[in-house]
């Protein structure tokens, strides 16, 4: 297990392209030893490029990659001591499960007894110990993915385990259980894991920290809770959470914000001097929007436009001052009678955004 440092790394597939068009814009990152990370973003966001730079498949146009302080930028995959789980399950077809797991150790010329002990230990954790003698090609796709993971885990010294959308070809039905299994195993062995996915569910359920990427940039890094509670940009607010965060354009003078002529206070004060002339928005999660019966501070008259029944929750579509707001309410709260409603936006949960970026508390 190692700490991975990305120092000023950027990459362009077409040499000489201007920086705006690089697949990965120069960035600095640190992946701490023994933690699990997810790189998440839509296709083309640069997450796969970053993964390939870590695995040595792509040599970055600039910057250095360090594993535990050692510069590995110029080293090929083979010399980097990483493990990788691919989108499509990769196993050695001609070998048994046992031989598949033992293969990396055989390549390293470990002695037989040591290999055996290690393989047994890992197979136990993967729940494959009763199938060690079976030909690996007979296993189902999800078990094959576990073998791929296992081939990394048998090596005590593996620097990091990279996973490239490992659930892509797994039956929807089995995705949950495999994801759960992978998580349990990584909790047990604690390798440094970097997990690439386009699926927010997967990323948030799996990783301790997420790195949200967009257009070749790392937009925000943080725990799932941080991304949910304080998205650094309107993009993250949209990307993380379902339904997405509500964003309302507000008026700002010298005093507090105003929405539809009524004052709206946010979680923290934003000095007018920090705001340029650009658009100012506030963001509030649908989970935090409340339909109330009594007027009060941060409470606005709204118009109920529609109701979506999601089962245990309902999503109410409300319009405040001509802007749509969604509120997620528990089912047993029922649906308000009539069109006119009062909407409360709890002050502590209303975050200010200027030009799409969170305005930091000064």
């Amino acid at each position, binding site marked *: 297990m190692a700490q991975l440092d990305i120092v000023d790394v950027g990459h362009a597939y077409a040499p000489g392209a201007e920086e705006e068009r690089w697949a990965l814009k120069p960035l600095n990152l640190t992946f701490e030893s023994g933690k699990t990370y997810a790189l998440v973003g839509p296709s083309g966001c640069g997450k796969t490029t970053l993964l390939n730079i870590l695995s040595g498949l792509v040599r970055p146009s600039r910057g250095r990659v360090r594993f535990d302080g050692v510069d590995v930028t110029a080293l090929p995959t083979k010399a980097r001591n990483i493990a990788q789980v691919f989108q*499509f399950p990769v196993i050695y077809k001609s070998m048994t499960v046992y031989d598949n797991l033992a*293969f990396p150790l055989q390549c390293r010329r470990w002695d037989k007894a040591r290999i055996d002990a290690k393989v047994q230990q890992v197979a136990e954790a993967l729940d494959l110990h009763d199938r060690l003698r079976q030909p690996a090609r007979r296993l189902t796709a999800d078990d094959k993915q576990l073998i791929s993971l296992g081939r*990394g885990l048998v090596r005590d010294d593996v620097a990091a385990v990279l996973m490239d959308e490992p659930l892509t070809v797994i039956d929807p039905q089995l995705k949950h259980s495999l994801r759960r299994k992978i998580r349990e195993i990584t909790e047990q062995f604690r390798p440094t894991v970097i997990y690439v996915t386009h699926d927010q569910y997967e990323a948030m359920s799996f990783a301790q920290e997420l790195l949200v990427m967009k257009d070749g940039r790392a937009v925000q890094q943080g725990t799932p809770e941080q991304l949910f509670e304080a998205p650094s940009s309107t993009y993250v607010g949209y990307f993380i959470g379902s339904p997405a965060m509500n964003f309302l354009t507000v008026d700002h003078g010298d005093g507090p914000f105003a929405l539809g002529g009524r004052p709206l206070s946010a979680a923290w004060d934003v000095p007018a001097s920090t705001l340029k002339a650009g658009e100012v928005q506030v963001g509030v999660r649908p989970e935090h929007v409340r339909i109330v019966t009594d007027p009060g501070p941060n409470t606005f008259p709204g118009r109920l436009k529609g109701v979506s029944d999601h089962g245990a929750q309902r999503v109410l579509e409300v319009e405040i001052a001509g802007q749509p707001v969604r509120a997620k309410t528990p089912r047993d709260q029922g649906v308000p009678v009539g069109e006119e409603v009062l909407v409360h936006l709890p002050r502590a949960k209303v975050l200010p955004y200027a030009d799409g970026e969170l305005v930091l508390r000064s």
Partner: protein
Amino acid sequence: MDGLRRHKSTFLLPGLLTLFLIIIFPLLFTIRVSFSGWNVSNPQMDFIGGANYTAVLHDSRFWASITRLVLLAGGTVLIQYVIGFGMALLVWREARGRRFWRVLFLVPMMTTPVVMAAIWQTIFHESLGPVNDLLEMLGLTGIPWLTESGPALAALMTVEIWQWTPFMFLLLLAGLLSLPKEPFMAAAIDGAGTWRTFRKVTFPLMAPVSVAAVVIRLIEASKLSDSVYVLTSGGPGSSTETPGYYLYIQGLRDQQTGYGGAMSLTYLVLMIVTLTVVAALLTRAFKLKGDS
């Protein structure tokens, strides 16, 4: 797709019937003629029982040609496979001018075997051909390639290898090009060297293509006769005769139609049985069944 039963035959039947009609008449004809004494002096569909078959069983020239074919086909196909696979591996990925090499290595299979055999005949010519010229330049003595049985067989094999290694090369290269990248990356990550990667990754992944290529070549090689006709005419004596060529001599040149028919069918059954067994053995050896 149920409810479409009426339509499915409309697609299949034209092709199936055409082939059936083209094949079935000759087959029935051959079966019938094999029980007759039809020959050049007695062109009649009489009935003489299994006499022709008894004669085939005792025809040592026929059985010698069968043995020869087994060695010839087995040997050349094996060599074709090894060279074809080797060349495909060499020009598979990074290689300077690989597209040029690929085209060049494909050319012989495109050329007409009999036509090229005629050229080969000039190449192996004892005094005027370049092979002996080359040997002499190297300080060796020339070899009477086409007039002594050992060298004649060697010449025949050389021509076969030249002609058909490209076919192996084509199938195997196409197979290699369709392999996914990931297993090779996984092997690199696991620390496998070149030889281990070949043995544990490339070769197993190529097993289905390999089996298909070898079986197809064996089928085609079992019919070897055109090149023999042009190159050695089965000679000297009958030392390079293949069953295909011997059948031609008996059935067509000497017009022993009845006897030739019996021999054809014996040969056909032998080939079908042998090739089926070989295909099954290869398939099992590479554990292709039950693969997901």
